[in-house]
Every structure is written in C-alpha cells, then in structure tokens.
C-alpha cells in the first residue's frame, strides 16, 4: 500500500439560503482554485449547497443522488475529491441532511446525518429523517469517516471509525455561535467544539478535520473556527475565524504511524467488551427507534 500523503483543504464558506445555483457557484470557484493548487481532497461544510435553517425549504431543495444538478461536482471529482453538504431525497421520499463524497466522477459515499438536532434553536427532526449508519470511506486518498455536526456530539460514530481504522474523521458543520459572557475572546460554543475535536483526536488517534461555515441566517451567526487537529492532539495551521477562508493540511502515514506507535490505543481496544456490555443493557434484539432507554 502506498503511504498516504494527502493534501486536504477545508473551505469555510457562507451560503445563500435555499439558492442552490449561487452556492454551487461558490463551490465550483473554490474547486477550480484547489485543483490549481494541487489539493487532493476539498471539504465544504454541512448543507453547503443549500444553507442551514431551511425549514419548509428543506423538501423543496432536496436532490436525488442522480440529480443533474450534482453533475458539475461529479465531473470535477475526476481531478479532485470533493465533500459537499446537501439535502438528499431518497427514492422512498425521505429527506436527509447528507454529506456526499465525490471521487473519480461518481458519488463514492453519502453520509446521512445520524444525530439530528432538535433542541434549543434546532428543529431538524421535524424536517429530516435520521441516518442509520456510519460507514468508513475507502478513498484513493485515505480512509475517511464522516460526521455531520451533531454526530460529533455523540461518541458512537467517531468510535466506530476508530475501530475501522480511519485515517481522518471529517466533521462538516453548520455550527451556530452562542455565548459571549466572560472575558474569553471567543464564543463559548467554539471553545466547546475545540474540546470535542481535541478529545476525539487524542482518544481515537486520528486527524480531526473540522469544517464549519460562516455567515448569518436571521440573526444566527455560524461561527467558523474550522481547524485541523493532528492524531496526537496538536492543532495544525492557523484555525479560521469568522470570515470565509481556507485551511490546508497535509496528512501523511508517517504522522499517523508516529501517533499510533507512541500510544497504541487501537491495538489495546477490545470492542467485544463494549459489545457484551451493550448486549447486557439492551439485549441482543436490536432496539428500534425510541425503544432503547
């Protein structure tokens, strides 16, 4: 297996709410630049093609995977791998908050947000169906596990990607900024996000690539702060602020090996203990939605 040497670019964008053409244009311009710069994988935030607080627009902007609208991204993925967020309409009519991974001219993978967020200012469960799976993507540029925003507030997805041997966990987010009390110089929500990213990187010995969006929707600020954390928990490069921007990171096998030989947490993990303990709690029957306590 060739050693990994992948240049990833996180693109922190603002979006136009429900205007897919305008957002696609933003994507294509960033992709063109990235191709020129020799980037291997370009990552956009959650719902990057649609904007976030869609409410009744959710179903109106939903796309099936074979939609001609996605063709420009499919086409460009012959020269660069692309992660973009959109609303997916499945054949059975359900709509999902989805991340698509485009590579070699096709959609190699779609991650449907598992942990929809429906509390506080959020009402995703009203408009969206939840995803049910965390599947590692075997890309030509590495093994990637995808999380959509709230998915990173639960441990299951990241843990499963860790078991699968993910090289990097890519978190695409439309994370609002809240909390301005204290003299911290930053939104308290950004502080919490950083703690989550650092913790996952340390626990799971992978790169954490956090790509958030910026801009405002009816007074809600999306708080940016996209950043890259190494498999040893160190911040790589300068995290982005509240403006649109890009952050590049080079992911290499050498760095991964170093982190995992130094602290072999995956080697020592015995997932069957978790499996046994879970079975003891929920039984061997798989609980359906709402049945597990």
């Amino acid at each position, binding site marked *: 297996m060739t050693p990994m040497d992948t240049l990833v670019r996180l693109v922190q964008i*603002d979006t*136009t*709410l*429900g*205007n897919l053409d305008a957002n696609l244009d933003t994507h294509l311009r960033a992709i063109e630049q990235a191709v020129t710069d020799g980037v291997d994988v370009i990552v956009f935030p959650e719902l990057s093609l649609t*904007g976030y*607080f869609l*409410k*009744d*627009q959710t179903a109106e902007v939903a796309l099936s995977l074979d939609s001609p609208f996605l063709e420009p991204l499919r086409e460009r993925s012959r020269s660069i791998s692309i992660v973009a967020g959109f609303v997916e309409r499945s054949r059975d009519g359900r709509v999902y908050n989805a991340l698509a991974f485009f590579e070699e001219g096709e959609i190699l993978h779609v991650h449907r947000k598992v942990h929809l967020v429906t509390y506080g200012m959020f009402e995703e469960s009203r408009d969206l169906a939840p995803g049910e799976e965390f599947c590692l993507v075997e890309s030509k540029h590495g093994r990637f596990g995808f999380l959509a925003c709230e998915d990173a507030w639960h441990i299951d997805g990241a843990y499963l990607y860790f078991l699968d041997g993910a090289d990097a966990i890519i978190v695409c987010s439309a994370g609002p*900024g809240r909390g*301005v*009390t*204290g*003299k*911290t*110089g*930053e*939104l308290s929500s950004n502080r919490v996000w950083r703690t989550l990213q650092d913790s996952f990187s340390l626990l799971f010995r992978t790169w954490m690539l956090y790509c958030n969006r910026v*801009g*405002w*929707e*009816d*007074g809600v*600020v999306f708080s940016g702060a996209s950043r890259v954390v190494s498999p040893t928990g160190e911040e790589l490069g300068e995290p982005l602020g*509240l403006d649109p921007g890009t952050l590049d990171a080079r992911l290499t096998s050498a760095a991964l090996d170093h982190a995992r030989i130094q602290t072999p947490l995956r080697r020592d993990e015995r997932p069957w203990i978790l499996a046994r303990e879970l079975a003891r709690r929920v039984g061997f029957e798989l609980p359906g939605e709402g049945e597990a306590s």
Partner: protein
Amino acid sequence: MSELDVDPELVVDLLTRFLRSEAGKFGFSKMVLGLSGGIDSAVAAALAARAFEPQDVLAVLMPYRTSSPDSERDAEAVVEALGLRSKRVDISALVDGYLDQEQVTDRLRRGNVMARARMIVLYDLSAENGSLVLGTSNKTELLLGYSTQFGDSASALNPLGDLYKHQIYQLARYLDLPANVLDKAPSADLFEGQSDEAELGFSYADADRILVRLVDQRVSPEQLVAEGFDEELVRKLIRRIVGNQYKRVPPIIAKLSERTINQDFRYLRSWGH
C-alpha cells in the same frame, strides 16, 4: 465580575458583522435610527457607525415640545463623537395634530402616540434614503415589555435585543461614548423628568440579575427565592414577561387553510438570501 459580563470586543465584532451581513444580503448599506440621547440608541448608533461608514448612518433627533432639552444636547454629542449624519424632526405638529383633535390627555396614550410618531418618521426617512431602520430595544426592555408596540420596538434589524441593560452599559464604555450618555438615569423621555426605573418600580441592575437566571439559565422562581432574591420582585418580573408576550410576537392569525403563514408556512426572512 458579574455573570452578566460579556466580552465587549467580541460582542462588538459580532454585532458589526451582523449588521453588515443581514443588511448587505438585501442590498442595504445604510441605516437610520432615532437618537434619543439615551444609552441604547447611542450604542446602536456606534455599532452601525462601525459596521458602515458613519456618514451612512442617519441619526434622527425627534423632540416633542415637552422633551427635555438635555436629551437633545446629549444626542448631539453622540452625533459629534461618532461623525454621524443627523437630522432634527420636531414631532410636535405631527403628534399634536392628533392629540388635540382627539383631546387625548392620558399620559400613557400620549406617550405611545409620540413613540409611534417617531416610528412613522423613521420609516419614511428610510424609504427616502434607501436605508433600514435600526432597532434599539434591549433584552431587558423587551422582556419587561417596557416599550410601545409598533413604536420604539419597530425596526428592521435589532443588534441589541439579546443584550441586557447591564451589557449595554458595558458596550457603551467599550465604545467610548460621551460621559453624559453613560451617567444619566434611563428614561423613555416621553415627558420631562420621566424615569424608567421609577416607573417600573425597580432598578435595571436588580432586574437583570434575576432575568438572566430566569430566562437564560432557566432557573425556577422557587430556586431564585431560595437563593435570596426578593420574592416580590421575582413575581413582578414574571408577570411582566408573561403579560407582555404579545408585544414580542406577530399578530395572531386565525388558522383556517391547509397551510397558515408562520404556523406551517415556515421560512426565514433570509429566504433566498
């Protein structure tokens, strides 16, 4: 340091971004606001002056014949300090035209008519110069309902609505506003000598400490009383919050069709922008 203390630099950065972005997406880069000489409108004006060019912010001084001359003087100091464009519109004729005709003597009714007359002026001027009306209602006043519906509470964008009075003072100090604006007692200035705190019957400082626990932290009233907060004041604040909910929401629409605006016809104002 109080639990109400905000990081003023961070807040000012966010609010100037808010104004630029939310106005800019609809093609606006100019604001108009009523400048009373009080702290709220001075802070709002300072934020707008940072978000846009100070000359793109039109401060409108709208005295009524019984308004305190000190207020106008303080407002002029703010105009001067921030380099704003300004305009003086005496609302006496507009207001008296109605009040005299209808023989309105009740102080509250008169005050509300003045507040709504100012709203009429601001919206007209916003149409004249292609700007948006900047809101100046803070969170304390919105929660207490201490404002005139469709009067001073009317605006296109409100940068202050999620900040308590205590936090407005913090911003005012950070923004280096004229001392008079900071030092004088808060007043709706609908008649000379009016005082917010005398009318309300409690101080903003006491109210803020309770409101942040009740609203932001969702602590129960019983818990607040157990912590030593004045029970009567806690009850009074809750009565005001509940009793003034009508001022914070759009008018109620009778739901008849299959899909009613704002009930199950749900779109942000940012729709398509």
